[in-house]
């Protein structure tokens, strides 16, 4: 995924002339936004997975107890 984004970004860079020429800033902003969205998607998914596994190991309990355990790193 990141390899294909890099390919696209480098090709856009090569075909688009010097940085911040007409439309280039738009492309840079777009690619950064795209990468940030996908990174946030991946990060939240795997963070949530980690939480689910920790709760499963420890046993289900109330939200307050789970949050306390997560804060304490247990």
């Amino acid at each position, binding site marked *: 995924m990141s390899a294909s984004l890099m390919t696209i970004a480098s090709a856009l860079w090569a*075909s688009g002339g010097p940085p911040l020429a007409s439309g280039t800033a738009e492309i840079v902003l777009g690619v950064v936004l795209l990468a940030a969205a*996908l990174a946030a998607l991946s990060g939240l998914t795997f963070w949530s997975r980690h939480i689910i596994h920790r709760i499963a190991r420890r046993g289900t309990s109330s939200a307050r107890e789970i949050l306390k355990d997560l804060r304490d790193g247990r």
Partner: protein
Amino acid sequence: MADEPNVHAELSRDLSLFHVTMMGLGMMIGAGVFIGIGNSMYVAGPGGLLLTFALNGLIALFTAMSFAELSSAIPRAGGAYNFARIAFGRGPSFLAGWVEWFASSVAGALYAVVFATYTLDFFAQLGLLEWLPFGLGIARKLVAVGIAALFVYINYRGSSETGKIGAFFTLGQMGFVLAIAVVGIVTAAVDPQRVANFRPFMPRGWGALLASMGVIYVAFEGFEVIAQAGDETVEPRKNIPKAMLYSVFIVTITYVLVAIAAVVAVRPGHPDLAGAQPWEWVGSFRDTGFGRAVARLMPTPFVGYLLVSMAVVFSSTSALNATIYSATRASYALGRDRMLPGAFSKISHKRRTPYVALGFTSLIVLFCATALPIMDVAASASMMFLALFLMVNLCVIKVRLNMGDELQYGFVMPLFPLLPIVAIVCQIALAGGILQESPVAWIVAAVWVPAGIVIYLVYSRTRAVATEEEIHVFEQAEAPRDSRRPVRAAHRVMVSVANPGNALALVRQTYRLCEAREARVELLHMVPVPSQVPLADADRYMLEGREGILETMLYLAPQFPVNTHLRYCRNVARGIVSAVREKRIDTLILGWHGRIPRGVFRLGSTIDPVIERSPCNVVVFKGCGGDQVFRRVLVPVAGGPNGAYALETASILAADDGRVTAFTVRRRTGDGFDLDAFAAEQAKRLKLPAGRMETKAVEARRVVDAILEEAEQGDYDLVVLGCTEQPLLRQLAQTTVPEAVARRCDRPLVMAKAATGIRSWLRRWI
């Protein structure tokens, strides 16, 4: 042994994380992506297309986390309707159910229209529709109505796909979509000139992005259906949240890859473009733009059209089926709780499906499919799902704040309450974006939502059933912990009773088998429930199953100590195998009516998979009822563990003064199998007295005929057969000897299969 017989009504949990994830993926990769790419390219350009999918995926993930947290704390079928009822009470829950009903119905209409659009476009491209006396627009409407009517009928028959079969369909549609994505990425890598198609990145400005995201949001609906499977899923507090998050993650990555493929599909300067830029050319086709793009990506346009058409047929039909049943369940639940007239919860006696709810759902589907343009159908569906998801994001905040200390959570979302608040703000913004592209969607919402509020105030408010026990009900619906990991008793025998009238005969024979060892007997009766009825509600409506088994239990209780289990399931075979695994059963007893099934089944559509998949000993009785005493028992053997188990079963069932004949058929003299040595070894293992077992071997070319002739002429009371050990592929190609004998033998008959562990299972499959 249990002192007091007891009836336990239980739900069959047999869907794993893989199955529920596939369920979500199957719903999400429905049709939105196929019509979305052309429309989004038109509205927002190539960069807007990529951002539309990536940002929508992130917003969908926020909502999926809300669903995941609520489903982990309230793992009962019902979804948004149930969450709203617990969080806010009757009024908002009615509105959630009302919106969910309409949203699913409109999504169903969208899938029907997309199916019609792409299949007709495929034939039109091949020049096969020139004979049509009317325009393509009318033909699309007719095909959409036809396919929608077909799936309404399938839902009425109650034979909709279930989680396990649906998983294979989803893998198929994922395969088609990913194949397109891979070809696109590889093409861009080989021919980097195509990457210039991303320039200009946002030709219509950043404002167009919001409109594109709003209209295409429907491509991200579907993960919420996973919450409906809470009653059928193994470890629901853990697997339901994971499946929701995984399905949104996988779908978003897939959509972004497919969008890249669509942008780079057409080479700049291609003669078909006629001077237009590639994104303009693809966008100009709007709904069918994706198909046109993929056609230029493949070696020949025909391959491209075929690939896209196959992907659409797979995706839209499975999603259409699922949305119709989801919408039906939503309106059925409203009827059940008397928020809509009770007729909505009426169940067909013959098909056991809620036919009134299905009828009204089909009216909405057909109206939207015929009366609205496809873009407005998509926008209306998006609008309704945005409203529904907004309510769920409110629910998660209210439930955590008010009941966070009472409920048992399997997942708590990070960054609470920031994420649900961000999701709510984004959903309001997307709804605003829809207004730019489809004012009709706002009109539809402005009619449907106030209509629901009026109906609630005038009708439902005074009639809805009480809600005090909401939380207690879902706690009861969980499978008891001790049933999942029971304490290991002596030998556990389960008797699966299809017809309560035959229970006595089966239990009597079972107790003969049990006399040989200390055993605990569990009586199991499976009640199949159509997927339109939530399993948790089955107890209320499937009365005949409960009454039948109660009568049987009352009759059997004084005679035999049994524990009785009534289980609701989607598929009887899967339900039985699931019960065997949960209860750690050592021997499963089944009855077989002896009727020869049609089609690919050898003994029956339930009995074949149960024999195949049960991880324990299996004994199947045919015609062994009454007080029959078996003095002469024939056991055809050819070695192997099932033959040995058949001899063991025969020696238990035979009367004290009875004789067991181990019988084998040799095709030629000096055949490899040494019957005498085998019988002697088994007699020693079973500690049989001398003279109780005898052997007999004959030479014949036709093994089945020889066994049947021996059974007839030898005047045997009972024939006991070991099940086949042939590999499954060979079984599909030809009828095996034990099954052929079982089908043709008119004597009382028993088939036996020994539990031989994972090695035997692998050997049979490979």
